[in-house]
């Protein structure tokens, strides 16, 4: 099965159809998508600001990262669930949408980076991680997630 066939199947599903034919379902689901965006933003920024040397500088990175992680994961779960619902209502449009493709292309490295490199650096003994590398990790994280957000917003503007 090609990717396009799969996207067509998503769009033709009962869920996709229900969201498309309702006047208010799409914006309501999108509101949850936006609330999850704020939550993910907060959970990511608290740790990234700290890694950059701002924010809660007196707190150990390891502790902050551990405190923020459940909220980050919770935000991601709501984000992905609401995102899949939105997607199912206009999957074929997304297939031809450059912003959607850019978003998916950035989303994978953003998630992988967050739960591998960034997680490891945040959990490491701070005396053994050079501040320079902490900052690089935070900058990469902020850049990747901002890219995902910006591309996501742009799905609605293009095509």
């Amino acid at each position, binding site marked *: 099965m090609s990717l396009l066939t799969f996207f067509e199947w998503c769009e033709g599903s009962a869920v996709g159809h229900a969201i498309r034919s309702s006047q208010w379902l799409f914006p309501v689901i999108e509101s949850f998508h936006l609330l999850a965006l704020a939550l993910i*933003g*907060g959970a990511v920024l608290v740790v990234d600001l700290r890694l950059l040397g701002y924010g809660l500088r007196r707190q150990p990175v390891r502790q902050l990262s551990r405190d923020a992680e459940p909220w980050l994961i919770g935000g991601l779960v709501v984000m992905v669930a609401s995102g899949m619902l939105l997607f199912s209502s206009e999957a074929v449009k997304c297939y031809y949408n450059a912003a959607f493709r850019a978003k998916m292309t950035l989303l994978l490295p953003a998630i992988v980076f967050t739960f591998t490199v960034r997680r490891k650096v945040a959990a490491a003994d701070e005396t053994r991680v050079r501040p320079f590398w902490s900052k690089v990790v935070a900058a990469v994280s902020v850049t990747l997630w901002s890219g995902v957000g910006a591309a996501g917003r742009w799905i609605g*503007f293009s095509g």
Partner: protein
Amino acid sequence: MSLLGFCQWLEKTPWSIALHESLWVYPIVESVHVLTLCLFLGTAVMLDLRLLGATMRRVPVSEVVRRILPWTAAGFALMVISGALLFYAVPVRTYLNIFFRLKIVMLVAAGLNVWVFHSTVYRRVAEWDLDPVPPRGARVVAGLSLALWAAIVVAGRMIAYNWFDPPGVH
């Protein structure tokens, strides 16, 4: 001049028309408004969650307020500037939109909530700064804040829809 009259005047100013018709600037301003949710609401939510005792329980509340709230304030400034520009681009339709009006009312309520927090329970923060779960007053303020901001985001998203607009304004 009535508020509606003011909006009608605003709508005819050249910069408003230019912004409304711009191919790139309007979507960029709107993107800034949406993405600043991460900075503004994200950091505000983390503070609220601390006040609820739901995260960063070992971090003194005063430290979160001192070190995180400036970022929230910077995000809020960006929100107000980009939001004012979005209003400026489409004044009359926005002014008449029920979701916009709801949003403004709730913004005022959220502002009052912040004022109540700082002028009451936060004044005695030294007494509960290190409590993993802050006193009831702080938790009520944090819960209200989360509920209000969630409703503000939903109302903001709904401004795009004119389901309840009076006839003849488009």
